[in-house]
């Protein structure tokens, strides 16, 4: 069927969204940072935002690698 690799790419993207969400909710969100007094909540938010941004960059890199892998033949064509 025409566009089959693209269907697969969409499916991988969907799985990564679900998996990434799970990581965010079950591991990163419950983390709490203490020991900085009044700055606790601020540092906590900054660290979590930083981890989330690193995850987004990682996600984009993974998608880019998968894109090159799936569409290698198409792109070189």
């Amino acid at each position: 069927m025409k566009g089959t690799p693209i269907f697969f790419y969409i499916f991988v993207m969907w799985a990564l969204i679900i998996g990434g969400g799970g990581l965010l909710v079950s591991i990163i969100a419950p983390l709490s940072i203490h020991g900085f007094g009044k700055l606790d909540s601020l540092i906590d938010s900054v660290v979590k935002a930083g981890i989330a941004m690193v995850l987004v960059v990682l996600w984009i890199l993974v998608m880019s690698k998968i894109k090159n892998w799936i569409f290698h033949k198409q792109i070189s064509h």
Partner: protein
Amino acid sequence: MLDKTIVGILISAIAFVTVYVITPGLINILTKRNMVVKDFNKPTAIMVARPGGPSILAGILASEFALYAFFPSNEILAIIITTSLAFLVGFADDRKVLGGWFKPLALAGSAAPIILLGVYYPHLAFPLFGSVSIPELYLGLIIFMIPVMGNSINSIDVLNGVASGFMTIASFALTICLFIVHNYDIALASLPLGFVSLAFYKYHKVPSRIFPGDSGALTLGAMYGTLAIVGHVEVIAAIALLPAVINSFLFLSSVKRIIEHRQIKAKPVVHTEDFRLMASDDKSAPVTLVRLILATGPMTEKQVGFVIFRLALFSAALAIITAFMMGIKI
């Protein structure tokens, strides 16, 4: 519930009929004013009216104001104002070509009513795992989401009927998902988007009599993004829009900067002698969804459109599965 069903039917009819009736008149006005552009995918020099944004906005406003008359809420006001502001951004770009950065920044500004009216819930809900509270980050997400949705629809508006047909599928999927997660009020407010897109598709499909232009595409995308935020279905909405998101991602990852499609020198798609579409073998041309679809061989414009619609249906199915998964916790 019966009241809402009747109002749902009424606003759907208003949305569909408004666009269906107004668009032929708009085509005549635009043609008389010479507001036409060449359809580059046709063998002969066919000029097509542009932009169709005004009729799309008219359909949305007529139906959303009717809904507001029955069930007044800040959520509907946010949808109306944000969508109208996005239309103005697109209309300005239709009349005068603006820089690549102008649209994302101006669209970010048009998200302000969502924040000012406080119609958001700063939790990001994921299927199976629950939701996460991100009070400060969520404001950034709102400002980010409207430009991304608007530009994603705009970037997929490359062939006759694709933007409106794709939006019809994605927005009806969003409505179904809103019903599944029991958000009936926003599901009702989302109905006009699907019916406006469907009515516009009648004139936009191959061979197009009108193009939506930036004003039409950004209006559709911004309304979709606003519905996702006020309906608390951000992740589901993004999944239903994946083919358009992939198109933007492929484009950006190959050109590596934010620029307008019209600024690209090397075309990703060329024509065969019988004027079918064919993937360009120019290595400097950006990778796009259409170019990937055509990688297996030349196709007609209509055939490419149907492949994109199949991808949209696949994403819609994934979005609906995700909506069901929202009710399951592990």
